[in-house]
């Protein structure tokens, strides 16, 4: 049998066979070398996650190579072993390839994702790099700004601030030129005020309403402007091609801009212009961070300038205040000097004026008592009348000065209202009857009998008012009414500012004096209460008034927390004077409080004090003797001592009054008073302690009150005065004479 399986060694298509043979060989070679390369490089690199994939892949490749290698033997007739090896190899290869193919389905997406992650990371790194760059530039800017600000703010002088700004900016940014254009006072032009390079810039001006300038002013960013515009022509023309130019606005803040509520807004539109020029021979451009720097600096400059302005303002205000202080101080000292001078004058006049008056009046009255011819009598009466008038005038003036300067205090004591009015009536009846005027007095039934107030001054006020009524009435009648003000009637439309409020221990007394005299025209009414202002029409008819009367009344009424006014319907229609004063209601008012007072309201003064034991302490023998005699004349049993210790030794509960002459230095009245207090524990046993002094100082009186004395009497003391002093003392147990 012929076997067709034995092929000839080199069949006729052996060229193709030959190429296949060679290719297979190279494939096998390649297939064997790839895993080797892979192993080599993987061993080299540390990171390769898929090692076992590599093994698989290697196996796949090796088997493929083996297959192709074994294929080499199949070109020639081969034995069955080769065939079986071939088959095995192919089967294995098939297996491994399929597995690998399956594997690759898993692996390739992973590998791809690795790639994407790598790309992502690269992007991120680039971004971070960019940001780093930004931060660094910002920090740079910050550092520059801080440095600049420090330089700028280290001074409060406007010019230094501006100059330093330019210098520092020039330095930091390496500028060719830097200039500041300030608005002129008219606000219509910008004037070149400062430049970096030129020492004294010639005063170029540019109108403010150029479009480029408006553009810069309208934003708070730095704006690139053309080097050819007027504000940028800072270098001598010609040679240079200027570098890039940037302009920024610098707000000029005034004090009035600092309104807390709209602080972010700039309420004024005044700006200066800062122009910055880069060097022309470098190809530099303005970077963003540099622009930001410029903007920040412009703002800082604005703040620094405003601080300087505020400082200037406050310095000016302070200087003004200092001047005013000095002026006020001077004025105050002048006023004090004037007051002192006036007080000195008053003090002197007080004594000096009254003494001669007293002498004149006393001697004239004495003269009246002697034998005189009728002519002489007339003369003496005239002298008396005139001097009485003068004395009253002097008293009035002195009173008014004291009233004005506030040193007058009311002497509050309990007195009888009814008897006061009766007294007034008694005093004016003679004059009224001479003038044939009818006077009527009506007192309201609910008017309390006793009141607490300054009797003397109330009397003075009533007399003055009634006196005026009499003076200005030729005929007719005068009516005086007095009643207690009720709350309902308090609201008077004419005196809205005066609202009396009665209370438990006070009431308001209202007195109305109506006359049918010549009246007053409405325009004169306000002037009535001013000092020395006389009613023109009456001045000629009644010479002799000082014009002070009503002014004094007003002061008294005010002191009594009241109000006084006059109503008149016009000339010839009479007038009504009304005043309201505040009086106190005496508490527990009954007769048992006043042991020495008889039932009659008037004439309750004792004329003699039989057996009243009195102790007189006076270092001065002469004055002590006089005081002793005075008291003895009044019936007292007087003991005199000339020292405080003697006084303490001799004083006993039998003594009712101790008179201490305290004008003499050396007597410690405080000590003696307190010892007397100690000695007599019970109040009723203690004698009344009264100071006798020629010292009219108010502080003396206050001191006496303070140390517990019961009274103060001014020397010289006449017999009558001593009589009334003792009487009052025993009645009220306290007597502080008005100083």
């Amino acid at each position, binding site marked *: 049998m012929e076997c067709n399986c034995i092929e000839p060694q080199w069949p006729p298509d052996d060229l193709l066979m030959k190429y296949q043979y060679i290719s297979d060989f190279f494939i096998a070679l390649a297939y064997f070398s790839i895993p080797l390369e892979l192993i080599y490089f993987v061993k080299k690199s540390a990171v390769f996650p898929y090692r076992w994939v590599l093994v698989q892949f290697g196996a796949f490749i090796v088997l493929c190579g083996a297959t192709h290698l074994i294929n080499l033997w199949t070109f020639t007739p081969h034995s069955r072993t080769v065939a079986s090896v071939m088959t095995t190899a192919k089967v294995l290869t098939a297996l491994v390839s399929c597995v690998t193919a399956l594997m690759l389905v898993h692996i390739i997406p992973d590998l791809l994702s690795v790639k994407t992650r790598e790309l992502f990371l690269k992007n991120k790194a680039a971004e971070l790099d960019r940001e780093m760059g930004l931060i660094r530039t910002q920090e740079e800017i910050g550092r520059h700004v801080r440095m600049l600000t420090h330089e700028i703010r280290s001074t409060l002088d406007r010019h230094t601030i501006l100059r330093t700004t330019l210098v520092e900016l020039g330095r930091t940014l390496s500028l060719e030129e830097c200039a500041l254009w300030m608005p002129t006072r008219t606000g219509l032009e910008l004037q070149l005020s400062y430049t970096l390079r030129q020492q004294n810039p010639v005063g170029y001006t540019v109108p403010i309403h150029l479009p480029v300038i408006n553009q810069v002013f309208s934003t708070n960013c730095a704006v690139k402007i053309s080097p050819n515009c007027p504000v940028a022509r800072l270098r001598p023309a010609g040679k240079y091609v200027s570098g890039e130019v940037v302009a920024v606005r610098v707000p000029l803040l005034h004090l009035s801009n600092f309104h807390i509520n709209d602080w972010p807004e700039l309420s004024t539109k005044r700006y200066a212009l800062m122009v910055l020029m880069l060097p022309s021979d470098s190809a530099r451009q303005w970077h963003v961070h540099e622009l930001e720097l410029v903007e920040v600096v412009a703002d800082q400059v604005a703040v620094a300038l405003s601080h300087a302005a505020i400082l200037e303002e406050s310095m000016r205000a302070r200087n003004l205040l200092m001047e005013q202080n000095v002026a006020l101080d001077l004025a105050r000292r002048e006023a004090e000097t004037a007051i002192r001078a006036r007080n000195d004058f008053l003090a002197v006049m007080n004594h000096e004026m009254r003494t001669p008056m007293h002498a004149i009046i006393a001697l004239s009255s004495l003269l009246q008592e002697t034998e005189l011819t009728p002519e002489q009598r007339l003369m003496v009466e005239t002298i008396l009348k005139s001097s009485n008038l003068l004395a009253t005038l002097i008293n009035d003036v002195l009173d008014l000065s004291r009233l004005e300067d506030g040193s007058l205090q009311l002497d509050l004591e309990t007195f009888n209202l009814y008897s006061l009015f009766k007294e007034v009536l008694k005093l004016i009846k003679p004059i009224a009857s001479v003038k044939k005027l009818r006077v009527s007095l009506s007192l309201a039934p609910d008017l309390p009998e006793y009141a607490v107030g300054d009797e003397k001054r109330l009397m003075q006020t009533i007399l003055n008012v009634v006196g005026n009524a009499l003076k200005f009435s030729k005929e007719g009648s005068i009516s005086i009414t007095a009643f207690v003000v009720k709350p309902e009637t308090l609201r008077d439309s004419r005196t809205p500012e005066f609202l009396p409020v009665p209370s438990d221990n006070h009431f308001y007394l209202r007195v109305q004096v109506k006359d049918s005299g010549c009246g007053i025209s409405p325009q004169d009414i306000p002037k009535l209460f001013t000092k020395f202002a006389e009613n023109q029409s009456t001045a000629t008819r009644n010479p002799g008034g000082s014009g002070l009367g009503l002014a004094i009344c007003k002061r008294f009424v005010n002191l009594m927390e009241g109000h006084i006014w006059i109503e008149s319907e016009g000339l010839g229609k009479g007038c009504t004077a009304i005043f309201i004063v505040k009086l106190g209601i005496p508490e527990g008012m009954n007769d048992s409080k006043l042991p020495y007072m008889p039932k009659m309201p008037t004439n309750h003064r004792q004329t003699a004090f039989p057996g009243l034991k009195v102790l007189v302490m006076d270092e*001065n023998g002469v*004055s002590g003797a006089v005081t002793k005699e005075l008291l003895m004349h009044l019936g007292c049993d007087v003991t005199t001592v000339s020292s405080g210790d003697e006084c303490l030794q001799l004083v006993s509960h039998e003594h009712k009054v101790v008179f201490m002459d305290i004008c003499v230095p050396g007597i410690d009245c405080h000590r003696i008073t307190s010892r007397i207090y100690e000695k007599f524990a019970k109040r009723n046993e203690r004698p009344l302690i009264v100071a006798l002094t*020629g010292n009219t100082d108010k502080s003396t009186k206050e001191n006496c009150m303070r140390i517990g004395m019961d009274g103060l009497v001014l020397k010289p003391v*006449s*017999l009558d005065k001593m009589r009334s002093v003792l009487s009052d003392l025993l009645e009220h147990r306290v007597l502080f004479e008005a100083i």
Partner: protein
Amino acid sequence: MDLVQLQRQLVDYRTSLYHEGFLDEQFTQLQELQDENNPDFVVEVVSLFFQDSERLLNELSKALEQQIIDFKRMDAHVHQLKGSSSSIGAQRVQKLCIVFRNYCEARNVEGCLKCLQQVKHEYALVKTKLESMFQLEQQISNAGGSIPV
């Protein structure tokens, strides 16, 4: 000289004393205090005044002769003198005392010396005048008349 003339003389003299300012109304008060219980009150008080004043004036002279002048003590003395003179109504003396006190406060030695001289002078004057007045009164009462007030 007959009684009426003497009385008139006394009245004129007294008036002149007031007029010239030697006495003031305090003296009148003193005279008012004199009555039948105490008929020599005025003379007694005035004598007391003379004694007191002489003593005080001596003290003042001595004080001003010292090396170191104690103004405080001097002031105290002058104060006493002022008090006495005002109590009897010796007006001029009293006024001078006020001035004297001011000099003392100002520690003005020259002023004090000058003032002391003046006070002494015035005191001497008023003493003479009062003594003359008392003599007149004595003459009147010797003649059996009453002393006009």
